[in-house]
């Protein structure tokens, strides 16, 4: 706009620019950058006496020397990766069906149906699974009804329950990017693959999946991030045995009031998630701004 309009004066334009710049700088520095810097500082101090602090790496060494912390961290990462892979495997055929098999109204209808569960809160979604899986729940009841079990079966509070909840919660973030990228694949390319004698598997492997790669990766990154940072689903579906890292952060901050240790945990989780996102972007040669917008 600056070039096209000679008829309004330059000072006015600069003032307008600074007025637009000030709020975003305030927002980013006061709510994002300074809080994270402060958290790093807090994680690097140690309480020597009351209201007396000294510099120390103690909170980080505590993490590496205490097996419980370390194990929870690795377990959270591994479960998150597994949940991401399973979500991808489950979502891919469905996204392909919506994008490539269906046309017209049924297509739009099914796509909206995919989004519906996500208009209700995560808490309600998790709560639904609790009602289904608990000892007096629907699945246990159904098993007894069909004579497959002779007493109530408790299906909550184990890793499978956590996994089901995590996959359910993150499904939307996989389906949407997959449908979008698959949609942009020209059907004639698939037909050409068959004309040239390719089997379904070969067409899938050398035409469809390479084309869908950007969608696959952006879906995976978002799902992994959300799973790693999830608190609600592991806590409610896993109960005492959930051992999720965000739960450790919560415990340190709110229950034990050990902010120094909690801040160190927070930084570690942030490093892990940034590292994985960075790796994902590197492997697929995607740009951060493109994947996220």
């Amino acid at each position, binding site marked *: 706009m600056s070039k096209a309009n000679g008829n309004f004066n330059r000072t006015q334009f600069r003032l307008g*620019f600074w007025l637009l710049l000030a709020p975003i700088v305030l927002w980013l520095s006061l709510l994002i950058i300074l809080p994270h810097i402060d958290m790093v500082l807090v994680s690097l101090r140690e309480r020597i006496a009351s209201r007396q602090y000294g510099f120390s790496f103690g909170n980080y060494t505590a993490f590496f020397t205490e097996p419980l912390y370390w194990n929870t961290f690795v377990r959270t990462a591994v479960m998150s990766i597994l949940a991401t892979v399973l979500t991808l495997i489950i979502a891919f055929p469905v996204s392909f069906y919506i994008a490539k098999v269906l046309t017209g109204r049924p297509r739009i209808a099914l796509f909206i149906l995919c989004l*519906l569960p996500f*208009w209700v809160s995560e808490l309600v979604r998790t709560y639904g699974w609790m009602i289904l899986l608990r000892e007096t729940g629907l699945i246990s009841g159904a098993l007894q009804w069909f004579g497959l079990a002779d007493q109530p079966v408790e299906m909550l509070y184990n890793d499978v329950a956590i996994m089901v909840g995590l996959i359910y919660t993150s499904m939307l973030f996989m389906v949407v990017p997959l449908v979008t990228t698959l949609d942009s694949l020209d059907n004639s390319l698939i037909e050409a693959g068959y004309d040239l004698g390719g089997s379904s598997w070969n067409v899938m492997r050398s035409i469809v999946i390479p084309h869908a790669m950007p969608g696959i990766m952006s879906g995976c990154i978002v799902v992994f991030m959300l799973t790693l*940072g999830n608190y*609600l689903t592991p806590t409610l579906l896993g109960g005492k045995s959930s051992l999720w890292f965000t739960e450790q952060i919560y415990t340190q901050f709110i229950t034990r009031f050990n902010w120094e240790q909690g801040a160190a945990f927070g930084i570690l989780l942030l490093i892990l998630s940034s590292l994985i*996102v960075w790796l994902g972007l590197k492997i697929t040669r995607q740009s951060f701004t493109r994947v996220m917008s």
Partner: protein
Amino acid sequence: MIPSIPSSRFFRVSYLSYVTLFFIFLITPLVVVAAFSFNDALFPSLPWNGFTWDWYLGKGDPRLGLFHDDALLDSIGVSVQVAIVTTMASLALATCNAFLFEREQFPGKNFLYVLMLMPLVIPGVILGVSILVFSSTVANWFEVQFGYEVEALRPGLVLVTLGQFAFLTTIATLVISARLRKFDITQEEAAMNLGASRLTAIATVTLPFLKPALFGAGVVAFLMSFENFNTTLMLVGSDAPLTIAMFDRLREGSTPVLNAVSVLLMVGSACLALVSLFVQRPAKP
């Protein structure tokens, strides 16, 4: 695989049943939650004891219905307040950001854009915790320097609002920027050639064009604020928004009144979604 390629009947049938199973998986938990809000029993579990409105209209213990449960109603009120303030604030800032990124050229613009996207990849718990740490540092500093306690910087609704605002602004910015990119700037120039000042041109030409995006971003921000849990959990004080209140009840092992709240939430967001579809449709180019 695709309709123009012949495939075996077995393949088509099994593919269709897989997709059907998927949608059953997707919808069952919600149906179950809704159904048990009408079960005439003290727990949201089997056996089915018949239909009742008690979990909506029940007047007293042990069957306190949603519309007489003051604690839950208060928490809904808190959530609505927080959501309105957060939505308004993030829309205002997001509109500024959209103009900044779409219209201005300045050194460091890409860097600022990447920073603006950061909140999307920071886990909610960490965002909440970092704001908690920083606000308390600032509050302590005030106390030491001036002997004055800044109540707003201690866990409570102000911090909850700030925490949600921190990441909702990014989402709103993306939505509004996308719409602003489609705007034909010559319209604004025409208005100015006809004698309008720059601000008048933006207010009468550009903002009406942005209205569907503003509304859409507003609905998304409102819903996300309403259902936010991770960030809120870390910043909450004595007034609990709905998600936190429900979480506390869930851990105590609650009555089907929570199912009734869930149904209310589903109906509420379905209505909002419908309204936003309705508002956005006629304005589409």
